[in-house]
């Protein structure tokens, strides 16, 4: 029990440090940005017709001219009190904006995460069990090709095929254009999430497949599988008794660690499909110098990614009997 408490305390401290570092880095990156927030968000023409007073007010609003460190500390002390501030672009509390965007993104992320994990695991396990056969070569070849394909290119191809040629799926957005929020059905949401989710899944699959395959090959070459063969086990029996059991743990770990990749990929994919999620909001906030929103998104994303990795670590302790019973882990 004491061990577990120590483990959790350690992890909490690590997470705090990580979040502090990430927010500092994000803050200084935007403050170094050459984009003038007034030019970008109000426009040259509008600025020209304004009085000095109005411009000074705007400058204050966008934080122009204030020392970066001071602004950061002000933001940080509010944040610690649970106040994420106001989004400069949306003119609403950052927490509210993030909640709305996150609700959109979570569909996409969850679908892509589950599909890439499940399909990647099956393909990787199959290829590893049948190493060297044409099945393995096909799966490995496919994964390598996808792994070296840029996600945006894949997204455009899918758009062309399904949205433009076949007209089977919408080109973008998360709900039908011009529809009342109340009229949007679950099916609508799914239809709009399919293409971006597919893009994210396909790119995510290859990584999981290749890693699972490697693990499975190691297992098939282990002494315990050799002995299982010597005892008359083969094919399905070997997979059921030894392959699955030994590969599922590294696969689950990989699955939770892959949250970061799905998150990273979603920024690009949401932008391409005009999907109003967290990723797109991050891009908008970055370009528009909406510092509070950008920092909010960065910190929340980092916390989720960290949480994924933490779960991955803890799974080892729960699933692996050598750690669970030996007490060596955690």
């Amino acid at each position: 029990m004491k061990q577990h408490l120590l483990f959790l305390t350690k992890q909490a401290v690590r997470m705090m440090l990580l979040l502090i570092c990430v927010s500092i880095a994000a803050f200084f990156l935007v403050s170094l940005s050459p984009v003038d927030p007034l030019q970008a968000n109000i426009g040259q023409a509008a600025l020209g017709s304004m009085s000095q007073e109005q411009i000074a007010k705007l400058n204050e609003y966008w934080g122009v001219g204030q020392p970066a460190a001071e602004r950061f500390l002000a933001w940080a002390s509010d944040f610690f009190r649970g106040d994420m501030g106001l989004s400069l672009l949306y003119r609403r509390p950052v927490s509210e904006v993030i909640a709305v965007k996150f609700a959109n993104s979570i569909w996409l992320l969850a679908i892509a995460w589950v599909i890439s994990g499940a399909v990647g695991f099956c393909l990787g396990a199959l290829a590893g069990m049948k190493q060297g056969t044409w099945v393995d070569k096909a799966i490995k070849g496919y994964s390598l090709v996808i792994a070296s394909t840029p996600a945006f290119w894949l997204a455009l191809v899918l758009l062309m095929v399904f949205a433009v040629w076949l007209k089977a799926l919408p080109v973008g957005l998360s709900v039908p254009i011009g529809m009342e929020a109340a009229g949007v059905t679950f099916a609508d949401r799914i239809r709009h999430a399919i293409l971006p989710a597919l893009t994210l899944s396909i790119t995510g699959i290859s990584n999981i497949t290749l890693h699972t395959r490697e693990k499975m090959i190691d297992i098939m070459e282990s002494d315990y599988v050799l002995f299982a063969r010597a005892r008359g086990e083969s094919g399905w029996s070997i997979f059921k008794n030894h392959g699955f059991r030994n590969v599922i743990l590294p696969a689950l770990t990989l699955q939770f660690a892959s949250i970061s990749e799905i998150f990273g990929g979603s920024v690009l994919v949401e932008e391409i499909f005009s999907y109003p999620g967290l990723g797109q909001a991050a891009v908008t906030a970055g370009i528009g110098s909406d510092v509070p929103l950008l920092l909010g998104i960065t910190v929340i994303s980092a916390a989720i990614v960290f949480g994924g990795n933490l779960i991955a670590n803890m799974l080892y302790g729960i699933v692996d009997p050598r750690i669970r019973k030996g007490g060596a882990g955690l």
Partner: protein
Amino acid sequence: MDEKKIILEIQNLSVSFQQYDKGFGRTDLDVIRDLNVTINEGEMVAVVGSSGSGKSLLAHAVLGILPYNSVLGGTILYDGEELTQKRKEELRGNEIVLVPQSVAFLDPLMKIGPQIRKGKNDSESKRKLDRIFEGYHLKQEVQELYPFELSGGMNRRVLVSTAMMGNPRLVIADEPTPGLHMKMVRRVMSHFRELADQGAGVLLITHDLEQALEVADRVAVFYAGTTVEDADVKDFAREETLRHPYSKALWRALPQNGFQFISGTQPYVKELPKGCPFGPRCEYFCEACEREIPYREVRGGKVRCISAE
């Protein structure tokens, strides 16, 4: 000795690996050449050779679990019929069983009981395993443990139990007693002796001649991938009754005979001398030893040496 039925007959077995060297194209690495061993019903034959001489490969060849890049030559007869890969796959785990070197050959994530039953959960398998555990004085709770939780004393009995799930007629034990004290070795060996006394043939693979002489009926001496002598255990009582210079050297290296080791090391497969592989270390070496050496009968045993008589 009355004629017993031959269970396993290995004739001129060879195992080689195809290796692809940079620039040199393909080279074949002949790890085992001209290996001959025969095992009768109720008999325990020890194959004795130093580490790296190809003993495990011999076991894997009989079980049909050699690596993919290997080529198998020669003939293996089981019950007088050729032991093809298909027959090996049918018989292994039931009639032909392997007892591995250590618990490292068990799946670390599978509990002992289900693992020995190969995942089968029917009441017949369960009853059989319960009986086997009783016979080896293993507590039934051991079935619920993972391999890493076994104590040294349980390890061996658990490994032997894996063999008993089938109906073994041929037991292959590959170095079953590494790093154990003599007392423990005797106990493990007694399990194998028991199996032989019940009518199975036992092939005991070991690098320890002393252990082999304790329990085996016959000893095949293995040197650089070849059997150089096949002798009754009785022949190891005195140096003069042995036939091959290498067997004699092993005899002199036994503790009771003064630990006299011969100089030199076993040649690596890539640097085998012409003719007799023992040539460079042999005091009786002559020109004729560089030609092919036949495996012949001498005084009721077999030997691969031209000067033996």
